[in-house]
């Protein structure tokens, strides 16, 4: 009996290992080579589609991007979240953010985005609207500080 039980445990372990090895094997291919996702057919492919992820994963990804921004420069993102804006007296400009909340609504983080050629408030949605943005991750300099943000190419309001 003991041998059977050991056998069961070992086989679960082997199956789990195979699954994990497959995941890593798939994981090494470039995102553009992966199987066509029906939701994305017809849409432009992005490097990181956070809008298709679970909320907690999206939250974690954003936290990690902000933690290690250099590795993500030049990559394209698609993010869903809540639109926020704030006015900074010193530069007399509006700054735009997308707020991502995790699935337990316990933690939240925001990432800045820049929508070139658009003026606030006419071209932007109302504050707290649910939006999806697509763009390229990059940085800019202001007052000797480097800021990381997404340079947005498209912004849609979700209902």
């Amino acid at each position, binding site marked *: 009996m*003991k041998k059977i039980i050991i056998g069961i445990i070992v086989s679960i372990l082997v199956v789990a290992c195979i699954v994990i090895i497959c995941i890593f094997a*798939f994981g090494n291919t470039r995102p553009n080579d992966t*199987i066509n996702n029906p939701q994305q057919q017809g849409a432009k492919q992005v490097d990181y589609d956070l809008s298709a992820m*679970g*909320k907690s*994963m999206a939250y*974690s990804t954003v936290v990690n991007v902000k933690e290690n921004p250099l590795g993500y420069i030049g990559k394209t993102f698609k993010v869903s979240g809540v639109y926020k804006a704030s006015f900074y007296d010193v530069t007399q400009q509006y700054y735009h953010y997308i707020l991502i909340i*995790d699935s*337990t609504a316990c*933690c939240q983080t925001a990432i800045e985005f820049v929508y070139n050629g658009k003026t606030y408030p006419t071209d932007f949605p109302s504050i707290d609207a649910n939006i999806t943005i697509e763009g390229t991750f990059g940085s800019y300099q202001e007052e000797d500080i480097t800021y990381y943000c997404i340079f947005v190419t498209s912004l849609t309001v979700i209902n």
Partner: protein
Amino acid sequence: MVEIMHKLSLYFQFPFVQYAMIVGVLIALCASLLGVILVLKRFSFIGDGLSHVAFGAMAIATVVGLTTDMLITMPITVLCAVLLLRKGKRSKISGDATVAMVSVASMAIGYLLVNIFSTSGNLSGDVCSTLFGSTSILTLTNTEVWVCIVLSALMIAVFIIFYNKIFAVTFDENFARATGTPASLYNLIIAVVVAVVVVLAMNLVGSLLISALIIFPTLSAMRLFKSFKSVVICSAIVSVLCAVIGMLVSIVAGTPVGSTIVVANIAVFGVFWLIDIIRGSR
């Protein structure tokens, strides 16, 4: 199924997900080894008590403004562990009352301090995250990852090197002491290991659920296996498996990591318990 595999392969591109898996597996392994010692020494509640102390210590670290809270949390938890476990079986104040006292006091003081002094925008979010560990494992900084890996490896090495001594002191402390083994020293080592593992495990499953990570694999293993070595090995395998499955499911389904891992552990315990009952009734 293909959908899920595709999703997972996408997620695993991220280094932070890969790190989370590695750290998670190591922590689960340490916790299970520790669990065997604590359950058999009848000190299961120590894991819970120390996790509350760690919460209190973390609150102090937040108030003081440290970004790497482990600098304060680790020493305070180790100190408490040593004080609580040092006496082993010879403690004057009844063991469980002391632990309860210290544990509840730390929680209360910690929460009070955080409420009075914290400048964080989302207070209950921070507290909730510390208590339940919803995404902590996925948002570790690089330093934290390395600290976790090094400390886990160290704890596992300590367990292997002192395996025979730990067995003797856990099975029969009086005999070990009587035949000249320095049981107090090994109790001290065990106390330090408990504290370190508890603080590390807070990153994976949060304060409140650490006990589950420590206790369940051992209890599951004890249902089916009869020798100490086989219980240790089974406990380690069960713990790692449940951690992996729990993390994968939580990443894909968006559930909190800690609870998912604990549910996986409960399921395995249920299965093993059933097998034991069926085997017993034959």
